[in-house]
């Protein structure tokens, strides 16, 4: 190694260092601490892990572009193990221990309502990865939701059933998530010309629902709704040679469930928001970035994580450097066109997602495809 090559080598090293340093320089100053609680373990892990990936990607992107008015974001992500009282302890730690400015998550409705009690009392802005749930959440004006209320999901399912002229519908749903969506479907089914000929429930985490599926089959419906967070009912419907089209709720739409459905993952239509294989134009940039970073295709919950961080960052930016949490709350309440959908957090359901934002995917041989059907607003 002659002296000149050493010198040249040193020069390049210095050059590279300054660039990196320069990039870093733009985000000097005290980091903005944002807390997050997701279910990385337990029953809700199918939601929590994609949400976490979406949030981390958003943090990296925002910081690379200079953070919020020059200050980098620091996400502190905790796992509530799909348990509401763990979620509450973690919320206490984030809000009062770490003194975060805002809170993202949790992934499950039960944890959201538990944590919402604390954020609402202390006026800390929160963006939950759940649809608005029980009545008590309606008064919590600081808790925004990046996923639609179950009423909207119910309408989307019924809109599709009406579009394929399925007058008689059979429903197979679990006692948890299924119950909640079912409670919204029952009152409005008539108005869509849909008659519920069979409604069969099974316990969460059931290992076999063949008998329930057989009862639905016996009612000879035109289409079958499956509302659950497990793949078992999809397999049983296929095992019973039921030929009717299956319409599933957004909760069943993840690659993990699709793999576990095995042969059941065919002729299944799902109203959701993101079909990574064939994204809407405004979603393309995010989908490509996600594929490049995690080399897997993003779906609804990854996108929800991504949007949540951006919404919080924008609100903090708008509210100014040392704004009070209440000021960030107010700044958050307004329209925001996200990758998942167009929100309006000023709406009374704190979500404001219109029916037209729904995209309908169809599972063909275990692969997602996007069908042209959209709900006209």
């Amino acid at each position, binding site marked *: 190694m002659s002296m000149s090559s050493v010198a040249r080598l040193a020069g390049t090293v210095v050059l590279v260092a300054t660039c990196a340093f320069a990039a870093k320089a733009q985000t000097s100053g005290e980091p903005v601490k944002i807390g997050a609680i997701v279910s990385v*373990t337990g029953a809700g*892990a*199918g939601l929590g*892990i994609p949400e976490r990936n979406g949030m981390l990607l958003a943090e990296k992107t925002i910081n690379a572009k200079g953070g919020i008015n020059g200050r980098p974001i620091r996400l502190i992500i905790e796992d509530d193990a799909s348990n509401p009282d763990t979620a509450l302890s973690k919320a206490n730690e984030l809000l009062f221990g770490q003194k975060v400015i805002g809170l993202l998550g949790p992934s499950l409705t039960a944890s959201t309502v538990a944590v919402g009690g604390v954020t609402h009392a202390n006026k800390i802005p929160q963006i939950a990865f759940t649809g608005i749930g029980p009545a008590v959440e309606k008064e919590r004006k600081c808790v925004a939701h990046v996923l639609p209320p179950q009423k909207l999901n119910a309408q989307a399912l019924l809109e599709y059933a009406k579009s394929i002229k399925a007058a008689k519908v059979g429903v197979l749903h679990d*006692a948890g998530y299924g119950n909640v969506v079912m409670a919204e479907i029952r009152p409005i089914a008539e108005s869509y010309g849909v008659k519920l000929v069979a409604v*069969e*429930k*099974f*316990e969460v*985490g059931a*290992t*076999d*629902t*063949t*008998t*329930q599926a*057989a*009862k639905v089959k*016996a009612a000879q419906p035109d289409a079958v709704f499956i509302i659950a967070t497990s*793949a*078992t009912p999809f*397999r049983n419907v296929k*095992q*019973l*040679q039921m030929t009717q089209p299956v319409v599933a709720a957004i909760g069943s739409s993840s690659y*993990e469930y699709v*793999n*576990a459905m*095995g*042969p059941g993952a065919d002729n299944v239509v799902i109203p959701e928001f993101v079909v990574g294989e064939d994204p809407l134009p405004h979603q393309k940039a995010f989908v490509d970035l996600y594929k490049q970073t995690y080399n897997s295709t993003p779906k609804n919950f990854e996108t929800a994580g991504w949007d949540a961080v951006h919404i919080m960052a924008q609100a903090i930016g708008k509210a100014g450097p040392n704004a009070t949490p209440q000021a960030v709350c107010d700044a958050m309440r307004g329209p925001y066109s996200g990758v998942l959908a167009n929100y309006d957090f000023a709406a009374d359901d704190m979500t404001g997602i219109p029916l037209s934002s729904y995209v309908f995917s169809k599972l063909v041989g275990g692969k997602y495809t996007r069908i042209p059907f959209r709900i006209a607003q």
Partner: protein
Amino acid sequence: MTLSLVLQAVFAGVTNGMVYALVGMGLAAIFKGSRVINAMQGEFSVIGAMTTVLLLTKAGWPYPAAILGGSLAGALVGAFIEVAFVRYMAAKNASEDSFLLLTIGLALTLSASILFFVGRDGHLLPPLGGEGVLIVLDAVMQFHALWLIAIGIAVTLLLRAFFHRTTVGLSMMAASIDADGAATTGINVRRMRTFTFILGGLLGAVGGILVTPLIGVDYQLGLNLTLKGFAAAVLGGLTNPLGAAVGGITLGLVESLAIIGISSSYKDVVAFSVLIVIMILMPHGMLGRAGRRGG
């Protein structure tokens, strides 16, 4: 309540029942051989099934070899548990409850380890006899389910013969009924207990492998299988494996008939209520054979 619905319920009931029976038989075998109620019996099934999945998909073994590997894995874990823990506690003649608590602890540890090392998602295995189905009066029965029931019956008869006709089986029974008595006749009680756990592990693993093509296996499946296996073994009087088979089938049928009779969400309520009633009214299980020391 069409006939095909009832038939479908019976098919589903017998299939599930046979799975509960296999897990229950493992439990009854271990209780018969060591007086220990094994609360981690379901984990043997998960270990057996997961090993088969990994051997099949990752190591690329042929299916029959993978099944053998999975069954052996269950047996090995059974042996390890007995040698590492049960033997030590038995030497300190620990109480019934502490054995139950030991196996609960092991169940928690094993399911968490599977979550950590193998991951969270569920896996399926290719069904025996292909994807075909048998349709009778519009009620559907998968070929694999037929295989499962056939193998279950074969295992039951094999087990019965093993305990009553082979010397190892007889000495296992003797060791459990009266350890000191058996020791005086030259039976190595400790080795017998290890064999019992190996047998229990093997049965659990076979149960797990057979059920995976139907319901898929993940790290949480263990506790559910243990609970239903418990119920099957208790309904069968706990000390005789054949009883566990009858108990399992009964439990499966009660569950699926409850679904069409009452409503699908009361399935577990009905199944466990039946279990409690039978435990109280028929202390020796449905087959009424005495020799059950646990209750």
